[in-house]
Structures are given as C-alpha cells and as structure tokens.
C-alpha cells in the first residue's frame, strides 16, 4: 500500500495530540475525525482490520482534509501526516473506493492535460487555470515582467499533474508530469516562472518524486522578482500577510518574505498567531469544488480573525486563496504579484 511509505508518520501521529490546535478542518468542524491523530489511527486500523475503505465516512474524512501541512511544519519531528493522507487517497483510488465526485473531478482534470505557448525566448511564465482566471493577477504579472525587462513566453493550459496527485490518481499525475516536461523541452524553456504555489510545489517536489526531470530552472514569482533589478518606487500600504500552505509548510521557501522586505512592506500580524493555515484548503487544490460549504466555513473562520474585515488589506500567494477569502470571507485580498506591481 502507498501508506506503507508513511508508516513512521502513521505510528507516531496516531496517538499524538501536539498539533491539535493547528488542525484546520478539526478546528472548523469541531470534530475529532478531522485531526491528524484520528486519521492516522484510522489508517492504522486498516492494518488490523478494524477499519476499511468500505467505510465511506472514513474515505470522506480523507477527502475532507485541507492538506495544509501545518501539522508537519510545526511538528518537532516533522512527521508527514500530510503525505500519509495523500498516500491514503492513492490507496483509496487503487482500491476503487474513491467517491463518485472525486472520480468525476479527476476525469475532468485528466481531460485538460495539454498546453500551448505564446511568445518567444527561453524564459516562460506558466499560467495555470486558477491564476489565469484572475485578471488582476495576470495584469500585475505582466507589468512586473515589463519592469524587469523580460518578455516571457506564456504557457497556458490544463493540469500539470498536481490536482491528480492530490486526488489520489498517481499514475495519471505522473503521466501529466512527463508530458509537461516534454512540452517544456520542446518549447526550449530554460527558465520557468510560476505564480501558483501549487504549481511550484508540483514542479519542484512532485516531479522529482515521480522521477521526471525538467529541462529548466523553476522560480516562484517572488523568487524570480528577487533576482531581477526591478525598481520599486513606492511602498505598499499596510498589509496583513498570510503565510502560504505550499511555500511555508511544504517547501520552506522564503522568497515571498524576502520580496516583502525588499518592498519595505509594513506588515501587521494577522489574527492571533502565525501557525494556523488560513489558506482555505489551498493544499487540497480543489477543496472548493469538492466541498464548497467547508471552504466557506474555512474562509469565515479566517474572516472572524481579521482586525477589521472590511478595511484590512491581506496579501496571499495564491489566486485560489484569494478567491476563497474574497468570495466567502468578504475580505480584501490581493496576491503578491498585485502588491509588487502596485509598488512600481
């Protein structure tokens, strides 16, 4: 089973409570089943026969997880309960027990595999579907590339595998990764810039795990800007910065914080702590499609922690989080690209 690779996490998390306060879904649903401890204990039950994937409630709990990885990030041993849950999803799919909604969603995304490029050169900007649907982010990115005197090739299209991996469809995810790598090679891309942290994580972490080699260097947007000689003439307004699931908890990437420093951003601490995930299930990629009611609750949870929900300006790193917090939390949210562009 895929979960066997995460046995250490399963055995250690099943009786551990130390990240209970960071259990995003558990905190919103006020349940035990939505905590790393009980998920791990239930997965252990697969080994002893006390639990099974025939129990649809158990499977639902696995697909309800927001996959923020903040438990892993804050654990002193960094036990990867997040990885365990992803592996469990793969086992659910292999056992043919995926919920119908998950099957449909995976099939839909599998059909989107394919990309097109416009422009010239060996620097490319990958606009995934989520980011591409946010016109402000796209416009801000364009402005920033111009300020950096870079004219990238723009790549658009469907999934590069991340959503399939997250839903538990590993062979399909790997196939998408191989195709995307081949596409980049055919396009002669040497430098790839991505806005979506999920895409960054896929390219820098999932692909090596799949054994897929990329022909190019990959930069998150902040990391790319940090390397450019862009002149920022204005300071951003007072901001609340929400750390990103992927960039903080998965990748430990400090590029966004470095860029905010360059911008001389006046950052105020959001809510009561900087440990919880406020990304509305960004790590689960399509939680808003699988469980919009839950995402609404997550966004409302975040909004309830804002000092002044109507006035506060919040910066996030993903168009997904921006969309969820704005739509359901009624918060004033911008992405890092928008903040940086406003400082030109």
């Amino acid at each position, binding site marked *: 089973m895929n979960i066997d690779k995460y046995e250490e996490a399963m*055995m*250690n*998390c*099943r*009786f*551990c*409570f*130390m*990240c*209970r*306060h*960071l259990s995003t879904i558990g*905190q919103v649903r*006020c*349940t*035990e*089943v939505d*905590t790393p401890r*009980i998920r791990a*204990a*239930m997965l*252990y*039950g697969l*080994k*002893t*026969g*006390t*639990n099974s994937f025939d*129990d649809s*409630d*158990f499977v*639902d*709990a696995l697909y309800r997880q927001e996959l923020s990885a903040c438990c892993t990030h804050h*654990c*002193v*041993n960094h*036990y990867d309960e997040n990885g365990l849950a992803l592996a469990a999803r793969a086992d659910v799919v292999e056992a043919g027990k995926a919920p119908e909604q998950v099957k449909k969603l995976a099939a839909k995304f599998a059909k989107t595999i394919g990309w097109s490029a416009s422009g010239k050169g060996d620097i490319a900007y990958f606009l995934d579907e989520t980011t591409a649907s946010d016109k402000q982010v796209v416009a801000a990115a364009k402005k920033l590339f111009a300020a950096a005197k870079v004219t990238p090739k723009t790549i658009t299209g469907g999934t590069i595998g991340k959503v399939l991996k997250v839903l538990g469809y590993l062979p399909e995810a790997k196939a998408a990764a191989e195709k995307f790598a081949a596409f980049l090679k055919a396009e002669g891309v040497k430098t790839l810039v991505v806005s979506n942290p999920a895409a960054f994580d896929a390219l820098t972490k999932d692909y090596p795990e799949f054994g897929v080699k990329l022909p190019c260097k990959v930069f998150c947007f902040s990391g790319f800007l940090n390397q450019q000689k862009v002149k920022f003439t204005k300071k951003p307004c007072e901001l609340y910065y929400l750390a990103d699931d992927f960039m903080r908890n998965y990748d430990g990437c400090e590029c966004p914080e470095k860029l905010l420093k360059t911008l001389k951003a006046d950052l105020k601490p959001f809510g*009561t*702590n900087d440990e919880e995930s406020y990304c509305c299930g960004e790590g689960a990629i399509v939680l808003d499609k699988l469980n919009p009611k839950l995402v609404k609750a997550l966004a409302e949870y975040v909004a309830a922690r804002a000092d002044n929900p109507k006035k506060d300006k919040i910066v996030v790193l993903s168009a997904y989080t921006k969309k969820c917090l704005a739509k359901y939390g009624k918060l004033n949210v911008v992405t890092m690209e928008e903040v940086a562009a406003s400082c030109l």
Partner: protein
Amino acid sequence: MKIKPDSYMFEMIRTELTDVVGDEFVDVKFADKFGHSIDYYWIPEMWHDRGRECPKPDFVVHPSTTQEVARIMKIANQYKIPVVPWGGGSGSQGGALPIYNGIVLDMKRMNKIIKIDKEALTVTAQTGIITKHLEWGCNKVGLSTMHLPASIACSTIGGFLAHRGTGVLSTKYGKIEDMVMSLEVVTPTGEIIRTLPVPRHASGPDLTMLFLGSEGTLGVITEVTLKVHPQPEARKFRAYIFKDFHTAMQAGATLMRSRLGPCAMRLYDETETKTHVSKVFGMNLDKGAYLVFGFDGREKIVDLQMQYAREIMEKQFHGKDLGSKGGEWWWENKYKFFYPGYMFHVPQAFGTLDTVADFSHIENVYWAMKKVVNKEFPDARFIGHFSHWYDWGCMLYARFIFPGDKVPPNAEEAAALYNAVWDKAIRAAIREGGVINEHHGVGLKLGRYVKDLYGTAMPVLESLKAKLDPNGIMNPGKMGLPGCW
C-alpha cells in the same frame, strides 16, 4: 446502555437531539464515533494497537450554547442515557471515554472568547475552546492566562477545569483552580447555574471548587471566567546539576521555603536527566540531577530574585551552574518532551504515576514507588521528575516504561500487567502520604483507588453525586463513582 442503531428508539432519540443542535451536529457515523473511542490513556491506545474495538458512543453531539447543553441533559435524563463531556480528548486517565456508550457531548463548538475585561484582568470564555487559542486570544491584547501546560495545544479549557489541570508556570500562577473566578455549569438534570463571581468570599462553601475536578461526573462546565495577567517584562531561567537527586530536592525545597517565588521549577532524577533531558537538549548530562527554575516580572526584581536563588543553589548546595543558557534550554524545549520520539509510545507500556505530597513526604513517596516498581517489575524502567512546586511541597511526575518487547502481545495480559504496576505503585504512594494525583485527574484509570484515598469522606462524595445526578447518567464509572451496567 447500548442503543441498537437499527432500532426505532435510536431514531427517536436522534430526532430529539437533532431538534436541539441540528442534524449536522449529531454524529452517528462510525468514523466520528471512532474518534471519540480513544483518548491518551494507554489502555485504549493499546487496545486499538492490538486491533481490538474500544467502546464507542451511540451519538456524538456538538452543542454550541449552554442552553443546548441543558436541553441535551434533559433528554438524556428522560431516557437515562449516559452522557460524557469531551473536550480535546487528550486526557491520560480515560476520563472522557464513553465506556457505557450513550452520548458524547463534544464541547468544541463552544469555543468563543466572550469577554476580556482589562479592568479586572479576567477573560470569560466558553469551555470548548482549545486552550492554545484562548491563550493566543489573550496574547493579542498583551495578556496571558499563564496556564501553559504541555497539552495546551490539544486540551480545551473545560478539560483543564474538569481535571484540575496545571501548567508550567504553576509555581507562581497556580493550578487552574487558582485561576478561576467563576463557572457556569449545567447540572446533570439540565439546570443552568453560575457560581459566585469572585473566588474570595465568606458566603458559604465554594461551589466553584465543587465542580472543579469533578471530571464531568457532577455536571458540564460550559463557561468560565479566569484571571489573566500582563505579560511580564522579563522571564529568566537558570539551571544546575546536583550530585544526586536528594541534594537537588533539598535545594529546590529550600528555594520554595525562602518564598522567593519562582514562576517555575523542575527537578529531574538522575535517570531522567541522563536519558531524557540529555536527549531533548541534545547534550551530554550523564551524571547528577538537573534542576531548573525561573522568575518573571519586572526585570530588576527578577534579577534580584535570581541572585538570591543562586546563593541557595551554589553556596548552600554546591550545584554546578549551567548558567542562564542551561535554563533557557528547558524553557525553549519544554513541550518537546511530549512529542513522539521523545515521549513514550505504544508498543511501549508506560504511565505517569502522578503524585503530590508535602516536602516532609515527597522523597519517601518517590523512593517507595521506585522501590516497588524496580522490585516487582524488573523489566520496567522507573524515572521521575518533580514538576510543580508549591510553598509546602511538590508534584512527583514518576513514570514507568516497559520496552515494547516486554509487553504481552495479548491485550488482556498487557492490561493486567499495566494495572498491576498501578496497583503496587499507587498504593505505595498513598501509604507514604502521597495524593493521587496532582493534575491529570482520576478518570477510569485511578477510580479504584479513590475509596482508599478518601477513606471515610467517600460517602460525602457519593452523596453529592447521587443528589446532583439522580439517574447516574453523568460520566458513569469514573472517579470511583458508580457505573451504569
């Protein structure tokens, strides 16, 4: 009682519960019920590890208001259904386990901070709030509950109230019972009561204290007003290594008797210093006993307190000074001890023989427990530290640990071995003047010793229970009180 899930009676009761809290907040699915079948007590963990099923509730109900709790209690009384309040489910004594099935009242929807009073320096909150979130809420306005136990991340404030919990700063700020101003409680028969608004009065016996530590057997604590404190200007620590545990204990007791008022103190015996403190700090402390203490408040006062404390440690007891860094290590890593890899874990068998006694008895309690564990259970290791110090004595956090390969694979045999250690060690502690226990509570684990402990006072406790809970539905079978089979 076990209500058959496919019976119409089950549906009748579910309908009534749903009417109170809504369909979404009455869980009857296996996965949800499973989540309430294991707490931090070794027996159910081991039971689960061996592939055995633990008792599950029939219903997990998530109330959001005190009124809802009251209505649920009335329904439970009408049908005589056991009710077990559940906070974070991180108790080590089995206090929240639904051993007779029935209703688990998961309190975590009652997670609001109602008011922070900056004049009186109090916070009022619903009791289902995870304590870390309560603390964060207070920190946001520059205050602190100063209740900072290792389980702060997973326990609700209600859990601490129900079990008389304590935090790492207990020596200065007290245990949870010292922090409480007043409580709101739903009685077992569904009446909502509030205890007097201040803890110091001469208006008869203190009802607040009646419910603190009652472990859900006398009612459901739904709201609390706690004292809060400004964050101190300075908090400084210092640590010493003493030649042996006895000398360190004398040094610690002398510091307490000096009334210098440390905010925290910990003493680890030689074995725990060598095996545990060394591992957590990543340093070699292979000889002696590690003692750490700290002071907080105005920096100048803290420095003066520290100066006098150092005189006790160095001049009177010749402790080897590990400096402020040696103390900061402990403060910075104080919760690390409880993460897997540092904490004991199934398949090991382990338990915390948590006992409290005055300075005249505490060392005898330690030696008596150590002797009995070493003699009767040669496969077990005995370690101990003294983690909550008061003017008159301290708490012994003694632990026994069996390596996994020395624990019987058969669940019943493993449970028998485990219970035998408790029987011997706890009775030895009680004989030497120890009280079980200081902050984990009694629960299911220690219920059988309560009669020994209370002696002729036990009927008083039993009468209170019978009067408040005539149908015996509140957390039956815990704290040595009657079950409901």
